[in-house]
């Protein structure tokens, strides 16, 4: 998608697709024409998101590359012929038992989009795995290039359903800038996906200046996902591997990492030279909503005249919190402004026929957001963002 005309055309296609919903989601003829209860999210009248701005895709080439590796991150095949993904511990996640994986089921994904009434999805690779930190850059460059080709092929095949952002290595910002340019000009992607920890400090973020300079020329959209960056990026958070109460402690660690990234992007002068770049920080920037009051109070002492206005240069996006913790989305909308929040679900982790996060996420947010907030988060912010990129 590159023009307003194309976007409108794809919207018409989406409407047509909605009209051909699977029978499961239509009014149940065997039930006196009453709506099927399991699909209430899809059938609830009202506003529906234009784009799910947070989804992941696992590609055949990705698994082929990982299957060729001797050490994690790698893919092995068990006695039943299942492919298992094995990772290593990073500052962003502890390595767990190898888990089943397979290429993403695009057909199933499109069915989920149609069922939920969401027109499109932004596709990204699974940034959280941490390839950028755990693979040698000599391997990362061709690996990411292949990933981007595959992602672009899915977008080309289903232009009415998907947008994409390119995988970019933080270990080689100059090459990443070239790849971003290729992604825009040859692949039809709209920006890049980057690991959050590259933005833990201003010093670290500045190493990516060549990439953001290219992003400024191209009007790129950067999707910032929690993950470790290359070890060459300074200022990243320390490794804390919980030895007790791990699940709860990872929650605190992850939300802390997210906010440090949001602070660099929102409060420092890093983004000043790149006014045409848009930046999306996932999971609402972690603890950010809680700190807004104290940031506003302390900002002027730190030389930040209008901290809230500065922070609102970035877009926040809820990811999994849409479905699991919709209250926090509403809280963020009240504190940060619904006009700077994009709808997102974290759909597709692990590949295969992913669990449908779309309908449940919309249903959860419908319960807590006002009509005006939904209009902004589901529709208007997306339109404004795309318009700024000349896409609508």
């Amino acid at each position, binding site marked *: 998608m590159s023009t307003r005309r194309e976007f409108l055309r794809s919207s018409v296609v989406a409407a047509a697709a909605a009209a051909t919903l699977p029978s499961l989601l239509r009014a149940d003829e065997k039930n006196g024409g009453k709506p099927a209860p399991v699909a209430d999210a899809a059938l609830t009248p009202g506003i529906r998101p234009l784009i799910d701005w947070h989804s992941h895709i696992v590609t055949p080439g990705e698994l082929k590359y990982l299957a060729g590796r001797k050490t994690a991150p790698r893919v092995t095949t068990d006695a039943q012929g299942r492919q298992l993904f094995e990772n290593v511990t990073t500052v962003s996640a502890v390595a767990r038992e190898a888990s089943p994986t397979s290429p993403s089921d695009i057909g199933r994904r499109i069915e989920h989009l149609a069922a939920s009434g969401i027109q499109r999805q932004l596709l990204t690779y699974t940034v959280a795995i941490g390839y950028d930190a755990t693979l040698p850059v000599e391997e990362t460059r061709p690996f990411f290039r292949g990933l981007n080709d595959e992602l672009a092929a899915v977008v080309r095949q289903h232009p009415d359903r998907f947008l994409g952002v390119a995988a970019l290595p933080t270990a080689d910002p100059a090459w990443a800038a070239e790849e971003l340019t290729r992604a825009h000009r040859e692949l039809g992607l709209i920006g890049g996906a980057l690991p959050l920890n590259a933005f833990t*400090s*201003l*010093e670290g973020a500045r190493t990516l200046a060549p990439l953001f300079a290219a992003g400024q020329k191209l009007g790129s959209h950067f999707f910032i996902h929690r993950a470790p960056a290359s070890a060459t990026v300074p*200022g990243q*958070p*320390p490794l*804390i591997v*919980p*030895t*007790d*109460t791990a*699940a*709860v*402690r990872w*929650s*605190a*660690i992850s*939300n*802390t990492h997210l*906010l*440090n990234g949001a*602070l*660099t992007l929102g*409060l*420092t002068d890093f983004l000043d030279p790149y006014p045409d770049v848009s930046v999306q920080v996932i999971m609402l920037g972690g*603890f950010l909503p*809680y*700190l807004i*009051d*104290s*940031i506003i109070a*302390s*900002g002027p*002492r*730190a030389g930040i005249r209008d*901290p809230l206005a500065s922070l609102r240069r970035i877009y926040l996006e809820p990811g999994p919190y849409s479905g*699991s*913790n919709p*209250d*926090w989305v*509403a*809280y963020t*909308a*009240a*504190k940060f402004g619904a006009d700077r929040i994009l709808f997102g679900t974290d759909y597709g982790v692990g590949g295969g026929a992913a669990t449908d996060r779309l309908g449940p996420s919309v249903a959860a947010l419908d319960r*807590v*957001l*006002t009509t005006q907030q939904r209009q902004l988060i589901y529709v208007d912010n997306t339109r404004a963002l795309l318009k700024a990129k000349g896409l609508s």
Partner: protein
Amino acid sequence: MSSRREFIRTATFGVAAAAALPSLLRADPAASDATTPAPAGGKPSGLIDLHSHWFSPASVEILSKRATGPKFKVNDKGEKFLSRSGPESPGGGNFPLGAQWFDLDARVRHLDEEGVVHQLVSWPTTLGVDAAITAAEARELWAAYNTDLGGAVRKYSSHLSGVAALATADPEWSARELARAHDELGLIGGVLPANVFATLEGAKQLAPIFATAQKYKSHIYLHTGGGSPSIPGQPDWKHTDTAGPRGSLDNIYNFAAATITLAYSGFLDAYPDVTVQIAQLGGSGGIALVEELARAAAPRSKEPTAAKFRQIYLDTGAGGRGPEAIALAVRVFGADRIVFGTDYAPQASVAPVIDNIGQSPLTAAQRRAVFSESPRQLLAAKGVKLV
């Protein structure tokens, strides 16, 4: 806030704010319409403040004699400071100490004026003294401070209670000092820096203190700051830019990590009669997000929030003073877990936190619980009789 008119104004604002906020922000959506101004007469009374600090005469004397930081200093203008070894304090490591840090008569007058009937006093662990001195120095300093604090709570028994300063570098000595605090000084527990509880491994180093605390049914107060480097697992964040906001974030993480240890790890299981108070709402409400995420991840958990936080109280403090953060904490943990605390001494007045609670979208009953009933029940369980 210093007048009845101002309180009514803020309480009225609280009603307006509650009406403007989405229902999920209200502490109790079903009852939020019941949020009411203060009763006729306006100014709240009977408030019990569980978060305040004091520099005692003996602590001033000992810290004045030190050759290096942390060292008590007075400049040519008569202004008092604690000179610290670290750069974290505004003013290049010199932490200013106004008159309210020392003058108990003035403190009691201020409390009376603001309707605060009782206040819990503790050493300000924020200043990092315990982390910066040797075990021997800590034993001398804290013993002297505690003796002074015992004298203060005897002199102002109707207004003040106290918890003893303890040395994280020497848990065995601290256990004995905690016993002395109960047996001889009339104190109700001890204060410790929160960061030493960031991991279960670190908390276990303090087992001797908690064993004694169980015997005395102590009230243990976890306040901002780090402890002795001998305690493992303490967070060590380093920042090179945007220090103020990142420091606030560090504080959230540090308190959340400590609260996780106490609420989720099982550490307190061996000490069922100990109560623990965690300052600043356990990190400005960050722990509320952690708990809600835990609930979402395990919706059928057999251990509800109330059970996990049975022994734990979160005080409003200065860092957690935002009206909405207070309401969120009440919504997630219940009003009986949230207690009024002002961080008096670092804050020259208790009024701002009273204002914040007044503006918080709470029901009248919730506000009453935070201001008075929850802290009153806590103190009563520790043998503090309030008129």
